[in-house]
Structure formats: C-alpha cells, structure tokens
C-alpha cells in the first residue's frame, strides 16, 4: 500500500514542479498578501476626512479643534464658512464627519451653568464602523476637556466623585491593539483558503481530463488516492503556514506566549482537516470550475465564522449553533488561545476533538463521493 501511495505522490509532485507558475504562486502569494493586509489594517482607524465650521473663531474654539485634531482620528480637510456647506460635503462624500462650533461658543463657555455651549458633530452613518470610531474619539476628547475645565474652575477638587469607581485591567492585550486580533485572523483565513483551493481542484482535474478513470483501473484504492492527493497539498500548506507565522510574529509583533510544539502540531491537524473539506468538494465536483466555485463559496462563509468582522458569540442563535461545523471557528479559538493567552491543551481540547471528528467525517465522505461518482 505504501509504495502505491508513494508512486502517486511522486506523480503529484512532478506535476507540481512542471507547472512553473503554480508552486511559486502558492508559496509567495499568500505571504505577500498577508503582509500587505496586515500592514494596511495594523493602523487604527484614523485620518477621516472632516469638514469644519468655526463660527466663533476664539482661543477656546481653537483649543477644542486642536484637541480633536491631536487624536489623529480626523483630518481637517475642509474649513467652511456656513453650516449648510457641511451638509453638502457629507452628502457627496468629500467629508465623513463635520464639526460646527456656534458663534456664541466662548461666551457660553464662560458661564456654562446657565447654558453650556452646543457643538454639532455630524457623521456619515453609511460607513458605520468609521462613524463609530469617530464618535468614540470625539466623545473622549470632549469628556477630557470637560474634566480639565472642571478642575481649572474648582482647584483642589477631584472631578471623579462617583461612589463606585471601576478599575480596569485588560489582560492579554494591555494596549487593546486591534492588530493583535486581526493579524492572526487574517493569517488563519488566508491559510485555510489556500489549503482549500489547492485541494478542491486536485481530483476534479483528473475527472475533467478523464484521467481519473485511468487511475481507477489501477490497483490503487480510493483512500490511497485521497491520501496521495493530500500529502503534497499538506506540504505546501504547511510551508505557507510557517512563513506566514514568522511574518506575523517577527514582522507584526503578534505575541507568542504558548508552547511552540503544540502550536505547530495543532496547526498541522487543522490544515489536514481543511484539506479534507477541499478533497470532499473535489470528489463531488464534475469539473474544475465547479470545484473552484464551491470552494470559493465555502471560504467566504468560513470567513464569517473566524470572528473577523463580528465575534461569533454575538451572532444570531442559529448561526452560533452551526458555527462548530466550520473548522476555522475551532482553529481561531485555539490559535489565538496559544498565541495570545498562552493556554495549553487543557483549555481547548473540546475544540480539538470536534475538529478531528469533523476531519474524519469529511474524509470518509470524500472517499464515498469519489466511489459513487466514478461508478455511475
């Protein structure tokens, strides 16, 4: 049995080496892509185009604008003269935020007990993620200014007079850097997508070209064929994984707090599981186009269970219930757990177990589908 698999592996590797574009594309493409994406998304959301109307033009209003500008969230691209102009700039998309300081700002600020000055802050909600960031940033600035003004007016008194004083401690990611969360997600997603793609056309190609029938009349068994098809793909996938991991840790300073051996072993298992999905698609598809489209669709769905856009825990109940079907859901929990929290097997063994169970089911299905389609 072993030598039969060995011959097939040699054939696969030869085919891989003969295609001069494919190998380098699979090895270098994901690495470049991950670096680019990680680089692009490592910076916090800032430099949002902002339109300003300062009707007061006083030292106080300038202090407020400077404080807002110092956050780097806003780029003051347009200084306008009347409030309706802001409307036009937001409508046609030149600005995503607008700040209007009224003419009586400094006068009212001198006597806030009577009537505090109102500052209009207009946001384009069409991009809710940026809008939320802008809102948080502006509210933070105003809160800070309020505290400052209070302390200046009442020297010696603490601005924080609340009875219950929450003290925060953020664990694992003290600075709450977004990249520590997003870079591992991006990496896991790119890795899974590539592994799935490579596997999903492996068998479909033989079927499309008619060579699958030739393989079927040789003494090779279906399971052997599937194993032989997956080994070169695993090798490629694992190489891609190692290089991307290196870039994530040394290039984008994602912390590695857990056990290296564990991380490498578990990742190997999950690449295998994902390949199983690809081979299942491949055994089902009639031709490479179908295999490709199915794999593409599957990757897009998996994307959402990686927790990149919204955390899985906050999705609707039905989606939370089906999330465990997707290997990436388990893998992202384990991967982040080892990298960021430094946890061991004791913390995540249920996820590993479910992943392995999915893997064996999928592999069995692939073998079954291969037989069914061939003897029809």
């Amino acid at each position: 049995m072993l030598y039969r698999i060995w011959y097939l592996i040699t054939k696969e590797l030869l085919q891989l080496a003969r295609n001069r574009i494919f190998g380098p594309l699979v090895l270098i493409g994901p690495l470049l892509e991950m670096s680019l994406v990680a680089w692009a998304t490592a910076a916090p959301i800032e430099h949002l185009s902002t339109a300003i109307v300062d009707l007061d033009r006083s030292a106080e209003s300038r202090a407020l604008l400077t404080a807002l500008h110092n956050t780097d969230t806003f780029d003051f691209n347009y200084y306008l003269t009347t409030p309706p102009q802001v409307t036009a700039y937001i409508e046609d998309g030149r600005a995503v935020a607008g700040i209007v300081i009224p003419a009586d700002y400094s006068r009212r600020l001198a006597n806030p007990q009577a009537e505090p000055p109102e500052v209009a802050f207009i946001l384009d909600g069409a991009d809710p993620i940026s809008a939320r960031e802008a809102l948080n940033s502006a509210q933070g600035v105003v809160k800070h200014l309020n505290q400052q003004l209070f302390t200046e007016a009442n020297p010696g008194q603490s601005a924080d007079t609340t009875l219950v004083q929450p003290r925060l401690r953020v664990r694992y990611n003290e600075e709450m850097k977004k990249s520590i969360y997003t870079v591992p997600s991006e990496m896991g997603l790119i890795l899974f997508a590539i592994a799935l793609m490579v596997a999903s056309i492996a068998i479909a190609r033989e079927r499309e070209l008619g060579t699958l029938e030739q393989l079927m009349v040789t003494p090779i068994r279906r399971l052997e064929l599937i194993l032989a098809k997956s080994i070169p793909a695993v090798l490629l996938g694992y190489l891609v994984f190692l290089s991307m991991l290196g870039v994530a840790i040394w290039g984008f300073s994602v912390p590695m707090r857990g056990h290296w051996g564990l991380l490498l072993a578990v990742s190997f298992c999950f690449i295998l599981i994902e390949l199983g999905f690809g081979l299942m698609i491949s055994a089902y598809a009639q031709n490479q186009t179908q295999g490709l489209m199915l794999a593409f669709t599957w990757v897009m769905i998996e994307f959402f269970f990686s927790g990149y856009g919204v955390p899985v825990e906050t999705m609707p109940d039905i989606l939370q219930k089906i999330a465990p079907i997707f290997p990436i859901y388990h893998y992202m929990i384990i991967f982040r757990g080892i990298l960021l929290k430094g946890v061991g097997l004791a913390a995540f063994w249920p996820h590993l177990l479910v992943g392995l169970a999915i893997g064996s089911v999928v592999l069995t299905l692939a073998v079954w589908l291969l037989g069914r389609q061939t003897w029809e």
Partner: protein
Amino acid sequence: MSIRKMWAVLVKESRHIWRDPATLVLLLLAPVLLMIIMSYALVADIREVPIAVLDFSQSQTSRQLLATLANSQDVVINRTVAGYTEAERLFDRNQIKALVVIPPEFATALSSGRPVQIQILVDGTDPTTAEHVITHVVGRSRMFGYNIALKTLPAQISRLTASQWIDLRPRTWYNPNLKNTHGIVPAMIPLVLSLPALAVMNALVREKEYGTLEGIFATPLGRSELLIGKLIPYVLTGLISAVLCALTAVQVFGVPFNGSLGLFVILAVDFLLASFSMGIFMATFISSQAASSVLGLLVFLFPGFFLSGIFYPVASFPDLVKEESQWLPSTHFVAIVRGLMVKGQGLTALYQPALMLLALAVMMTFLSVFFFKKRLK
C-alpha cells in the same frame, strides 16, 4: 472588429454556461446565497457578551449592582465564581470575556458614603468586544453609584452635573443608530460578485489548458472579438446577480434604496466590465486552472475583504496600500453602492469612482488584447 464574429463567440460561450446547469446555478445563485448568509452574520450588533462575577461582598447592595449589570442584553452574567483560579480557567477556555470583582467592603463603604473601587478584568484579545464590555460595565456601575449618591449625598451631585461644560451634539445621517446593516450589507455586493469574475478568468484558462484555444486560433477570429465575445455572457449573468443581490439587501435586510435603479444597473455593468477584464488580463499570463484559482483568491477575494473599505476605511491605510486599493474595482464599487443605495447619490457625486472603473475596464481590455498573443507555442 466584426460584430458577427464576436456574436459567434458570444453564443458559444453562452452555451458553455447554459449546458452546465450546476455552474450556471453557482454563477447566478451563489452570490445571492452568500449575500444572505454573510449579511445575516455581520449585521449582528455586539450583545450578550458572557461575563463572570466574583462577589466578596455577598450583600444586598452587591446583588443590586449585579442586577443592574445584567439588566440589559449588552452583557450576560453566566458564571459566579468562587476564586481567581476558577476565573482564570474560564478566561483560558474563552468562556468569559470579563470578570467583575466586588470587594468585601462594598456594602459598608457605600452605606457610609465612601467611594469604593470595583475591579474589572477584561480579555483584550478581541479589542472590539473588550471595548463593548468596558463601556457597558463601567457605565452601568458608575450609574449605580450615582443613583446611590442621589439618595444619600445630594450635595455631591450638584458638583457632578457642573462638570458638563461642553455639550457635544452628535447627529448621524443615513443610519442614526449606527447599525451595521445599512453600511455593510450593500458593501457585500462587490464582494460576492468576485465569484463571476473568477469564473470568467477560469473560462479562458480552461481553453488554454484543454488546448481548444489552438482550434480557435486557426479561425479568422481576431483577439478583441474573442475576448469581448467571451466577456459579454458573463457580464449578463453578473448583472442578474447584482440586481438580485440589491433586491435581497432591500427586501431581506431593509436597506434603503434611495438612488435610481437605472444608474445602479449602468454602474454595475461598469464594475463588472472592470473586474472581468481584470480577470481576462490575468488569464493571458497563466495556463492552468489551479493557478487561476489561487490568483483569483489573491486578487479578488482577499483584497475584496480587507482592502476595499468594507471593514477599514481606505483613508486610514498607509499611502502605498491606498494607491493599490485604487486598482481594485471593488474599492470603487463599494463607494458607489453605499452612496447610491444608502445616501441616494446621483452621478454628480459618483462620477469619480464611475470614471475610475471605466478607465480600469478600458485599460485592462486594451492590455489583455495586447499581451494575448494569438499564436501557438
């Protein structure tokens, strides 16, 4: 260029699509299906984040605080732990996102009017969820203290309100509650339409791989007739998908459609031409479907997710990436779809991305005709 010859290629390519029902269904319906699943997953706003409490006080006051914290859907107290080690294990297993520790002196301090600290430990691995927990737990516990002070220490309250100096009045247009639905669901349309782009690229590569392209070379067909004839059937299926997707966004997810439908169709064709001609351009350089699949991922899927401005605004990218994202058709179409559907913008506001798409389409078609050597190897 002769229309008749182009028509012949067009009919042949349409038959290819039509003859294989599975591919046709994938081409037409997969984008809509994806759109539904992805939007459904993404429009969820963060809520019911699981947290645990460690209550050293065990008093009526501490239970009141916990009731206040649990009194919303923002967080759910699903564990009461006895010590830090137990909490540690829950953090490790990803079962809680935060731990609220109430000190033993909580009730006595509050009843005598002394400030008291409560500790909140937050799992920072996912900063978005962490921020959500912080906002709600901190806000609610401060409010709890404020309400107690209101009863027992009215003198301090007047000072508190005096700290309201500047009154920031936020007003959000188009999407007052900042719900993800209105911003993200329309932006999914360009993303799911990368599926037909992949199919186009594959259609040309397949002919190369099979060797049927050589048969076509022997005919009097010109390069541009071949390429454009191949493109048009896919633009039509893509357009059907685009309209179905927009319909789904409006009917299923309640996204407003404030712009004109005619303009949407025209700009969708503009986008499809740009992204498909990009697919054709790449197909001229590769000769196996395996390579085209990986290239499709690298050029259409990942940049579509990460670089087209759906989750991160293009404005905050480093300059080099900002320039690169201008080369992606989906970046421009995200701006167009959001503007047209949600803001009701017309061509006067959208001419810039529309022109960019047109320029990309023309340039890519020209380049592919140029590089697509009509000869045998």
